[in-house]
């Protein structure tokens, strides 16, 4: 159900973006996403995918990027350093990702090398159910073949996409004409035969293809080990977010007068921290000497606010990041809060065992954004503060809910921060492990909501 829900949401978002771009006079061509799955598999949710790829004209790239940002889409930190060469950038909003392209790229090849294929995609395109343009079957097959080869056949669904796209082809002579003009004939043959390994299938044909491939492999630094390139990319991502080695330490004021020091690499607290603290405060309003746990505390904003508001409360904060824990402890000490303890560890693991069955409220703003692909987050991931685990991003929330039953007293409450559609999915699951959902709190200025469940 969650994959279906995610697919329908992604479809809804992509249609909305298509309408917005069209209204702004920007033609958009849908490359990949739930609508492609609908076309190939007669369902938008044949496999897990939380992002949508849209192609715009190169001359409209800036306008499209500006337009998305004005509409609340955020330039994704993980766009790396060479997104201009790839002519593609990811934008995030409400847990979804739009991969905006103004050229095609595959593996390390630059967009200009696939210009003929991009032109052909536009030529044969026709309007699809989304209102955006879709490639004709012949150019779609060539595109999907290049995509599969470019990604080294990593995912079986990409090979299957090629097979299903082949079944839609009406004019095979046109397919080979397109492939020849784009110099990707070998790649199409390999994809159709479902052969090849990441290193053995060249994307571009002939000697020219080899020269382009090797020269860009060198100039893009692909001779550098992937682990090093990942670190550079992460540093750039952190820098974009104001953190990391390229970022700067910030001193922030929250709740009007509380000064927090937020060092490099720790998530910045903001309005949502204040809201979450208020929700937590409301849950313990009638409890004397409550025990409250803030999971994923970061620099300690929520814990600090609750502790200041309730001097009788015992506030426990946990975080998996040693940097965050050090920051939180420093803030607690500077603010002279004797009723906050900060623990280093994963979720509730570091809590003292004597708290079992005694906690009145657990609050959290754990990473829960669904990742573009199903890859787990982690403390070394630049998106660790945002991207959750599992294909819908709720892996951490599920683990926390399970662990929380041991620490919450009967009637104790768990507050999680998540998107509307995630709550629709998670609610029933929590009900089945002994939680009762309570009325959710009003939506924040963002798309997130605070969902409260009570331990039975």
């Amino acid at each position, binding site marked *: 159900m969650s994959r279906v829900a995610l697919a*329908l949401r992604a479809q809804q978002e992509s249609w*909305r973006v298509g309408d917005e771009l069209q209204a702004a006079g920007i033609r958009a061509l849908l490359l990949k996403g739930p609508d492609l799955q609908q076309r190939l598999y007669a369902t938008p949710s044949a496999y897990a995918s939380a992002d949508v790829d849209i192609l715009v004209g190169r001359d409209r790239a800036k306008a499209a990027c500006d337009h998305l940002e004005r509409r609340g889409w955020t330039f994704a930190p993980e766009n790396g350093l060479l997104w201009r060469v790839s002519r593609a950038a990811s934008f995030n909003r409400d847990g979804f990702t739009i991969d905006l392209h103004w050229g095609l790229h595959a593996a390390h090849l630059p967009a200009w090398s696939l210009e003929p294929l991009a032109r052909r995609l536009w030529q044969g395109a026709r309007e699809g159910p989304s209102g955006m343009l879709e490639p004709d079957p012949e150019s779609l097959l060539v595109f999907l073949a290049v995509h599969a080869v470019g990604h080294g056949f990593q995912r079986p669904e990409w090979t299957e996409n090629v097979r299903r796209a082949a079944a839609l082809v009406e004019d095979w002579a046109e397919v080979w004409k397109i492939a020849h003009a784009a110099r990707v004939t070998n790649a199409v043959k390999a994809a159709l035969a479902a052969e090849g390994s990441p290193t053995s299938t060249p994307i571009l044909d002939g000697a020219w293809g080899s020269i382009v491939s090797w020269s860009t492999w060198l100039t893009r630094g692909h001779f550098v080990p992937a682990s090093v390139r990942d670190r550079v990319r992460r540093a750039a991502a952190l820098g974009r977010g104001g953190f990391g080695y390229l970022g700067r330490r910030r001193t922030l004021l929250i709740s009007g007068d509380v000064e927090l020091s937020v060092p490099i690499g720790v998530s910045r607290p903001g309005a949502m921290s204040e809201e979450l603290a208020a929700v937590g405060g409301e849950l313990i309003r009638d409890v004397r000497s409550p025990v409250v746990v803030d999971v994923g505390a970061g620099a300690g904003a929520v814990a600090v606010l609750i502790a200041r508001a309730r001097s009788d409360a015992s506030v426990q904060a946990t975080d998996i990041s040693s940097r965050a824990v050090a920051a939180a402890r420093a803030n607690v000490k500077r603010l002279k809060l004797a009723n906050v303890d900060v623990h280093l560890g994963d979720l509730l693991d570091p809590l003292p065992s004597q708290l079992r069955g005694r906690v009145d409220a657990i609050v959290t703003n754990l990473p829960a954004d669904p990742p573009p692909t199903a890859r787990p987050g982690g403390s070394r991931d630049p998106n660790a503060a945002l991207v959750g685990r599992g294909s819908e991003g709720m892996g951490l929330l599920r683990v926390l809910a399970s662990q929380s039953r041991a620490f919450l007293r009967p009637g104790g409450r768990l507050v999680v921060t998540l998107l509307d559609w995630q709550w*629709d999915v998670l609610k029933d699951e929590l009900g089945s492990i002994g939680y009762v959902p309570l009325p959710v709190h009003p939506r924040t200025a963002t798309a997130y909501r605070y969902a409260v469940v009570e331990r039975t």
Partner: protein
Amino acid sequence: MNDPSLRYRKPAGILHAELDAEEVLLNPQTGMYHLVNRTGRFLLDRMEAGETLGQAIRSLSAAAGADLHRVRGDALSFVEAMTTRGLLEPVTD
């Protein structure tokens, strides 16, 4: 009250996906998900194939071996609920 002599269809813009033998609908206007069970899907599929609501009800009654009168009552309630939520509309063209 819905008219059995009419055909009903999902309005343009309603997103949907199969889930086993059921169907998940997402109404972008409300942001709500709806799950249509096997029986509801049968009715929708029949109308999609060109049957009127009344014909679809008879088909369902025959397929399920259930009392026509009872099936009619349940089917009309289902269509009423779906149209109220913006998930179905009568076909007039």
